[in-house]
Each structure stands twice: as structure tokens, then as C-alpha cells.
């Protein structure tokens, strides 16, 4: 066992927010710190490797997100950490969308492909054509399965959203939470160690902070179990 492994067992959850030059990393860090995490913002491979849990944040376009991950040489590293080593990861907004196979924002783009899903634009026609895009503001989320993200099932809380594209999962067992805007769509997902939310927990006041805490607690327990 290396020194870093020993340290990780002794301290609180050590989280690394993946810095790929897109998104509100400061806000995410503030929220994680508020729930007791030790936070680093980094794109350094060694730092990422030593994290107990990773956060993939992101505000911006799908193509830019993937390009930045590639330019920083992070795609293969993340594949290794997430798919092979099963490190807990939480994707937020674009960070969640990038976990899909394909994104249809301004063209067709290949995503990280960890989940059999695609990212498509809201397209409201007919009776719901008055609905505005982006979907921005507070909306109720209903959690549909037990996951590190769901506090209590069947007790919807409002979370803050701001997005024009949403994720469509081919495998419905990946879906952890849904929301209604024009139609029902996936806003929280979980498969093994991979979690993602379309809304912004770091901007959703107490319920958002509770979700982050729940994710971290689960991640921390995983690490402790290994020790």
C-alpha cells in the first residue's frame, strides 16, 4: 500500500474536480467544500489518479468539451480510472452529457461513451411549441431508483437546471431520476461507479448540497472498504 492510499483512508473525502477549461469549477468547489470535502481542481494525471472521487463539471458545448478533454490527454486516463479502476465519478450538466456515446449539439460528436446514450436538443412542436429552450430554472426531480444520488425516493425536490440538450438513455436501468418539461426526460443517471446529473446541485441550495454529500459519502465508504 502506498503512502497516498494510507492518507486517503485517514482523511475526509478527497475530491478532484476535473479542470478541462469549461465550466463553473469554482462554484462546484465551493459547494463540495461546504459539505466537508477536500477539493482540488486539476487536470494533472497524478492528481486525478489519487482522488477518491472525481467530478466532471461543465458548462458549454459538447464538441468543445470533448476537444478540451482530448487536448489535455484526459480521455484515455479517464477511461482507465472510471471503467477499469471503477473510481466514483459524478458528471454535472455537460459533464454528464459527455458520458454519452454521441452528442448532437452543432453536428454529430463522439462522447466518452461510458453509457449507451445520446444527447439531443429539446424539440417542442404542436401543443407544447410554446415551451422555451433553454430549459432554465427550478424544476422537480423524481428519483426512480436507489443510487448515491437519491436521498428519498418519491419525494420530489426542485433543482436548478439550465440546458438546451438532454440525455436519452438506451438502457433504462441507467436512469436514476427524471423530470418533466414538455415530456419526461432523464436528469439523473447511475451505473456502477458512474453518476451524472443534468441539473446543478452546486446551485440547488440545500437539496443540491445534500445530493453532493450523499455521493461523497458513498464514494468515501468505497475507499474505506478497500483499505
Amino acid at each position, binding site marked *: 500500500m502506498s503512502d497516498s492510499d494510507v492518507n486517503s483512508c485517514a482523511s475526509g473525502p478527497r475530491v478532484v474536480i476535473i479542470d478541462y477549461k469549461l465550466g463553473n469549477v469554482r462554484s462546484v468547489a465551493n459547494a463540495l467544500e461546504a459539505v466537508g470535502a477536500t477539493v482540488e481542481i486539476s487536470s494533472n494525471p497524478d492528481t486525478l489518479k489519487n482522488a477518491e472521487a472525481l467530478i466532471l463539471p461543465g458548462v458549454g458545448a459538447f464538441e468543445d468539451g470533448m476537444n478540451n478533454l482530448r487536448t489535455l490527454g484526459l480521455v484515455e486516463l479517464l477511461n482507465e480510472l472510471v471503467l477499469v479502476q471503477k473510481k466514483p465519478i459524478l458528471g454535472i450538466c455537460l459533464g454528464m452529457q459527455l458520458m454519452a456515446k454521441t452528442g448532437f449539439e452543432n453536428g454529430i460528436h463522439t462522447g466518452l461513451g461510458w453509457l449507451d446514450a445520446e444527447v439531443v436538443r429539446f424539440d417542442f412542436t404542436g401543443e407544447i411549441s410554446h415551451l422555451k429552450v433553454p430549459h*432554465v430554472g427550478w424544476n422537480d426531480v423524481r428519483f426512480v431508483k436507489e443510487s448515491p444520488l437519491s436521498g428519498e425516493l418519491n419525494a420530489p425536490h426542485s433543482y436548478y437546471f439550465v*440546458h438546451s440538450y438532454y440525455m436519452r438513455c438506451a438502457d433504462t436501468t441507467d436512469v436514476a431520476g427524471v423530470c*418533466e418539461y414538455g415530456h419526461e426526460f432523464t436528469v439523473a443517471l447511475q451505473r456502477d461507479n458512474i453518476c451524472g446529473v443534468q441539473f446543478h446541485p452546486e*446551485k440547488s*441550495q440545500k437539496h443540491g448540497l445534500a445530493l453532493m454529500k450523499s455521493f461523497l459519502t458513498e464514494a468515501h465508504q468505497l475507499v474505506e472498504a478497500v483499505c
Partner: protein
Amino acid sequence: MLKKRLIPCLFLKNGFLVRSEKFEYHQLLGNAIHQVERFNAWEVDELIYIDITSDDVYDIRRDDLKVKSEDNILTILEAVSKTCFMPLTFGGRIRSIQDIHDRVSRGADKVTVNTQAILDPGFITEASKIFGSQAIIVSIDVKSTKQEEYEVFYNHGKTATGLHPVEWAREAEKRGAGEIFLNSIDRDGSAEGYDIELVRQVSDAVRIPVIACGGVGQFKHFSQGIVDGNADAVAAGNIFHFTELSTKRARKELIKSGVDVRN
């Protein structure tokens, strides 16, 4: 269902929190950072800060009030974003992509752009390409002209554009704005309620969310903005500073009018 939003709007002048009236008179309310804890306790849906400092103002600092001026908007933003876990918008004095970057990297989720968008509408497109439409709010200040026509003004409401707000809002949407922040100069600080006609005209003309501002003096004005004006969000400044339990009472009034707001 997507909730309608209730948003306090905080105007900053030379780093002080101020009350605004007709864009001309500004009354000192206190130090922006000291007030952060209060805003946090409000549990509102978002906060909008607008820096209305113009280059030609004199320093309104008064030592006897024991308030210190924060001369740097970015310092204020950093302090606010440390404890405010809700969407934050910072606007005012944004002239370049770097200005937006400075705010977003310190915790702002969105910025409002006003004068620069008028001077160079291409700036809206450029900014929304880089930061996403959702981060770019075009702020529109409207005044009624002598002919009783609505007209867009910029440069702190001082300079006329010849543009009708409906025309400009559509243009802003086309160029990539994610939201419209619509403020009535005539109603600013008046406590007479929103200019409902103006709010409805603009809300009905665009498919992006419209945030109404300017004129709220009573809690029922909020629901009027949504029910009669078709706004997606209602903002106000003064009522939040001068009224006890303002957010609770505003929310109660909105629910009573059948508006779906966050509990």
C-alpha cells in the same frame, strides 16, 4: 413543471449596494459583502448583481456610516459565490470576452450584457458561442418617449437607440442570447408595479425566458408580472431591502395567484 422564478436584483455602485430610482438617484444601502449572509438566508431562486458604476460618478463614501467601499466587483463576486449556492448573475460594465471570463471563472453562472450588445450585436453571438447561450443574458433598458412609444436606451439609460424593445429582444434572441432581462427606466424605484404592457409585448415576442424588472412596490406586483405580463421570472431590488420577510411574503402571494413557484 418548471417553476417561475423570484429574483432579487442588487445594484452596486462603486462597490456599494444602492437603491436606484429612474436610473438617476442612488441611495446607499451598505457594503455588498456584509449583506451576503442576508441574501443567502432569503432562499430565493437566483440573485442578480448589476454593477451600475459609471466612470463619471463621484465617490459616495461616507466615513460616518462605517461602510467600506469594495472597489473591485470581482472581489465581491468571489465572496458571494463562496456561500451562495444558487444561480448567480453578474452584469454591468461588461465590454469584452475577458470580462465575461473573469466573472464566470469566479462563480458567476451568467452575465448580463447591455451597452456592448447595442454597440456590437455580434458580441452576443461571440459570447454565447464561447460560454453557451444559457450564460448570456441581454439586458434591455426601456423608456417611453414623448410619442409614448417604447424605446431601448443604453449607457446607463442615457443614450437612445431608436430601437423598439420587441425588435431588439428578437434580434438578441436570434444572435444567441439565452434570456432577456427587461428593465423599465420609468418604473425604476417608482413602486407602481411593472410596466405590464411592455413585459407582455417582449415576453410574447421571444422564445427565450424574460425576466421582468422595475417598479415592484407591493407583493402583488410579482404575480402581475407573471400572470398578466407572461414573464418567466420576476425581479426586483428595493422591496427586498426595505421589507421584512420579503421573499416569504412574495412567494406566498405568487402561490395565492396560482403561480407555480419553488416551495
